[in-house]
């Protein structure tokens, strides 16, 4: 029998860290020693507690969820919501990923944020984020999950606009916040419907009862899941609500790695996986999720091919990879979705951290050389950095091969699983889309590596070159750890079809969680096919995809390395299709025309007419009216005694008149 060990501590430790560092941001702003230790240790200790719980749960072999009730939060009429934490196999996987990757990124941040005046504040926000992320994944009810959902959104906002003196950065924070609001609306509506149907918002009440309350294909199941997916689109940056994520790169790079790549943006995938049985009951929603996911995967990958900003490439890459995860959970391969979520957390965090190391180094070199202006994020200003940054270079190659899906790196196993499942579970078109996107992925990653680390020519500038440096120890260690994980992280789940030992650790671990959903799908859908849409088995296609991916990597790499690039300031503007892709298909402009400007005009109208005219007019009118009456009254106060006595006598007559009659 498994009982969660010190469950509250998992959440309390990061919260305590946030409080200590938050106090520090005020009281010992200049002294960064406390934050340097407390920030990473709070999260690291939380990871240790999670790990202990993981082994305890594994040893017990339980498949049930353990709910820990802390206290009652809302009790109103039939609604009862407790602050209840749920420790089950799915939340355990998520907790391990969140605390593990967070610990590494906290350590990295010590080096990256060194000397920043907001150092303590940064760690306060980062710790707070981990706390809310853990609330999100351990919540045992929709409302508490929503608290975490909103909390991570808040931290995301705070950290995107961390350097708030820069207006563009704080605007990026606002953009993220507002776009996410649209998604949150979906979460709320879904909750209302769920409460209306089930009379409860606890996972333990709703999910097991789903098949009893809802028929397969029930319109309410479709509505609930579509609204939930709306929330996911916002949080996990899917078409059409993905636009905030590239702008969110304004935040410090560790933030991009932790929040906007490894953890927060995957919350939507977790939400679908958590409510898998509801999605299984709504085939239309499943198709929508899968289609949006595959579409996003391809669409974002095309944009990534023509970006010059290293973080923008990674941002679109993240959107694209999130698309894969939704494709997986959409077709019903929930384990594959979570698997890709996990490997992606490793290699994408690593890519961001590596990019951060590059930016850090270039920025530092420019600063030393007295150069101002120029964009340290622009890959045209990098070039041949492997000579200065070998650790970053090698580890990033590990991540690149992983995300490109080259055997035996982690991404090969998880991505191939996603693509294969979409093919055999009845979505041949999406299977094709996913394959194409996978090859694009290999392409843009090879381009990124070639531009940044190779080419035999460095473009940072003569004076600055001598100041380039490798990642300091605090940054290098997380890079190495994540580099190793990018290689071996996929080995926990090796398909039977490959001529390798069959490993299904993750699938075996998560199957009980998704059992109800699989059961519903097995009852109503057909059996999974055994061959890909174009024929051929899993082994064939695994072989094809890894060979093609590797070929694309080599081809693009050589093409880019052979070309001579000039620093960003001297480069010509892109033209033709690359301009369209560089401009991100003009989606931001489209939104601006179609949504932002009409709304602004409407709101300006409201402001001028309703606010200024109607409301202010009424208020000001009342005020002037009162003043006018007051003025009349003050005229009665003439200062003449006779007038006062007259007023007095009027009063006397009225009073005596009323009492007499």
């Amino acid at each position: 029998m498994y009982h969660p060990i010190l469950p509250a501590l998992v959440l309390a430790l990061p919260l305590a860290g946030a409080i200590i560092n938050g106090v520090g941001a005020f009281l010992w702003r200049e002294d960064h020693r406390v934050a340097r230790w407390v920030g990473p240790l709070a999260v690291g200790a939380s990871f240790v507690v999670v790990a202990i719980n993981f082994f305890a749960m594994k040893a017990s072999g339980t498949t049930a969820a353990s709910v820990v009730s802390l206290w009652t939060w809302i009790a109103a009429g039939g609604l009862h919501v407790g602050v209840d934490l749920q420790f089950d196999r799915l939340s355990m996987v998520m907790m391990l990923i969140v605390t593990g990757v967070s610990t590494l990124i906290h350590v990295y941040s010590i080096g990256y944020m060194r000397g920043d005046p907001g150092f303590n504040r940064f760690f306060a926000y980062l710790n707070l984020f981990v706390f809310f992320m853990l609330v999100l994944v351990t919540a045992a009810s929709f409302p508490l999950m929503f608290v975490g959902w909103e909390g991570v959104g808040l931290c995301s906002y705070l950290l995107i606009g961390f350097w708030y003196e820069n207006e563009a950065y704080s605007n990026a924070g606002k953009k993220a916040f507002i776009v996410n609001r649209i998604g949150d609306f979906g979460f709320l509506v879904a909750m209302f419907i769920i409460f209306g149907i089930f009379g409860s918002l606890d996972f333990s009440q709703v999910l097991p009862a789903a098949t009893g309350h809802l028929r397969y294909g029930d319109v309410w199941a479709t509505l609930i899941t579509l609204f939930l997916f709306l929330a996911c689109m916002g949080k996990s940056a899917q078409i059409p609500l993905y636009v905030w994520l590239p702008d969110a790169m304004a935040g410090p790079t560790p933030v991009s790695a932790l929040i906007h790549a490894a953890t927060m943006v995957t919350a939507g995938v977790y939400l679908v996986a958590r409510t898998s049985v509801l999605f299984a009951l709504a085939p239309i929603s499943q198709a929508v999720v899968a289609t949006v996911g595959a579409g996003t995967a391809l669409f974002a990958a095309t944009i990534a091919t023509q970006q010059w900003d290293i973080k923008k490439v990674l941002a679109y890459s993240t959107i694209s990879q999130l698309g894969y995860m939704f494709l997986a959970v959409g077709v019903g391969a929930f384990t594959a979705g979570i698997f890709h979520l996990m490997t992606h957390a490793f290699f994408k965090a690593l890519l961001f951290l590596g990019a951060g190391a590059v930016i850090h180094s270039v920025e530092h070199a420019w600063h030393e050389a007295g150069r101002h202006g120029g964009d340290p994020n622009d890959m045209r200003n990098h070039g041949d950095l492997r000579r200065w940054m070998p650790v970053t270079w090698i580890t990033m190659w590990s991540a690149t091969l992983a995300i490109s899906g080259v055997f035996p790196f982690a991404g090969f196993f998880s991505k191939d699983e996603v693509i294969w499942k979409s093919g055999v579970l009845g979505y041949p078109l999406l299977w094709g889309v996913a394959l194409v996107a996978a090859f694009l992925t290999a392409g843009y990653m090879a381009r990124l590596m070639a531009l940044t680390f190779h080419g035999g020519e460095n473009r940072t500038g003569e004076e600055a070159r001598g100041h380039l440096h490798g990642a300091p120890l605090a940054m290098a260690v997380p890079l190495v750890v994540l580099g190793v994980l990018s290689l071996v992280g996929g080995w926990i789940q090796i398909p039977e079809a490959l001529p390798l030992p069959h490993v299904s650790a993750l699938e075996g671990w998560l199957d009980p969680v998704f059992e109800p959903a699989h059961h519903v799908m097995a009852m109503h859908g057909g059996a999974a096919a055994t061959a890909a849409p174009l024929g051929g088995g899993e082994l064939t296609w695994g072989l094809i995809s890894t060979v093609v991916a590797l070929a694309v990597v080599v081809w693009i790499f050589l093409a880019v390395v052979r070309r001579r690039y000039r620093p960003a300031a001297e480069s010509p503007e892109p033209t033709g299709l690359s301009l369209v892709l560089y401009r991100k298909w003009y989606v931001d402009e489209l939104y601006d025309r179609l949504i932002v400007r009409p709304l602004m005009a409407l709101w300006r109208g409201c402001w001028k007419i309703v606010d200024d005219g109607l409301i202010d007019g009424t208020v000001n009118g009342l005020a002037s009216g009162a003043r006018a009456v007051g003025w009349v009254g003050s005229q009665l106060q003439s200062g003449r005694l006779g007038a006062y006595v007259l007023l007095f006598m009027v009063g006397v007559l009225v009073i005596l008149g009323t009492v007499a009659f």
Partner: protein
Amino acid sequence: MSGASDVAGQVGYLRALLPEIVLTVSALVVLLVDVFQRGEHRGPSGSSVRWLSVIGVLLAAAANVTLISLGPAGPDALVALDGFRVLANFIILGATLLGLLFAFDYLKREGLEIGEFYALLLLASVGMMILSGAQDLVLIFLGLEMMSISVYVLTAFNREDPRSAEAGLKYFLIGAFASAFFIYGVALLYGATGTTHLVRMASVLSHGHPGLLTAGGAGLLLIGFGFKVSAVPFHAWAPDAYQGAPTPVTGYMASGVKAAAMLALFRVLWVSLGSVQGYWHGTIWWLAVLTMVVPNLVALVQDDVKRMLAYSSVAHAGYLLVGVAAGGPLGRGAALFYLVVYTLMTVGAFAVVYVVAGKGDRHSHLADFRGLGWRRPWLAGALGIFLLSLAGFPPTGGFVGKLYLLRAAVGSHQPGLAVILVLTSLVAYYYYLRVVWKMYFEDAPADVPEPDVTGRAFRFGAVLCVAGILVAGLVPGPAVDAAGSAGLTGASAPSVDESVASTAPGARQDAKPRTHPRRAAARAQE
């Protein structure tokens, strides 16, 4: 009832009137010491008279404490011995103490350091205490006149200043006029009931058949009191007198005179005329409404802060009349609590105004307060708190006081009064916050005169006021309890009273349903 508390005998009266006696003696001592000190020459009085008068007030307060242990007075006693009187005395003595503390600097600045000032102030306070504590209309009238005559003189105290003299004269003339109404009302009530004693009058009225004589008497009494509490439309003297009087006197008048008259009105209405509410309740209701609405509106267009505060204090009479109209333990508690807070904030506000206005009280225009927050942070901070409390913002006592009044109004099923109180308070925000705005959000041009330097007595008084307001706002419990449990001798069925008060805020002291005053009067006349 123990022998000590039997005030029918002469010794009993000496004990029952100890605070008034102590204060009277202090006033006489002050006069004598002043005469002997100054002798023939007409220079300023020595500082000893100041401290003697302060000591007199403190001794009177100590004597007032001894009243608590005395049991209720006998049914025929001329003065009441109840919690209501004790609290009223404390309020009056507090206003007197603050008036004295704030007067020291002012009198020195204006060259008015004459011993009579202190003696008059103390005698006026004696009159107030008698007014609010007496149980007989004749004695009430005596207290009223004793207070009024002293205050007339105080108003005109600065003979060199024509504004002061004019204010005193106006106040006196209309005051004499109002006193005539008052005494006529007493005569009519005596004619109707054969007594001037409040408790006995109540029993006569509840058993007999009250007629037109009673109605007329009640109406005339209301007019007399309406003048003293500056209820609209008998308020016209107030802004002129308040503005013309020496500023510390204004603060003292606005608080002490109003407190004494308001509490006496409460006692007379709810003790002697409680059974004939139909004759007066509608009138009080309308007086309250008019007194809330009119001065608040007129204050909006005042550009002189002293005059604005004068209108504000008239408006506060309206809020207090809500407590009177509510009646019962709740209304009583609300009125008493509000008077405590009101005294602190009004006296304090007027005091700050005279400091800013400078010699001759010339610079009390709104423009003279520009940038005060940066020039004199402590002074402006104190005034800010007084104004916020007058406006009724938390966490000041003014907020709690208004809340209490609202509860009393709603509890006595007069939501109309509550609504009007809230709306007029809202209007008042404008003119209170305008001063705050001037102090903190506008820069002072070079030609704005520098406010006076404040003395120790002023600072002590100001700290007392601020502290009192904040305590009343943050921990109102003890004061609310004291005010809420203050008994009123002769208020109908006190035992039912208290039990109802403790259970429901909406309790009224008489079970009689309120009907339209005129119809009730008609029914009473049948």
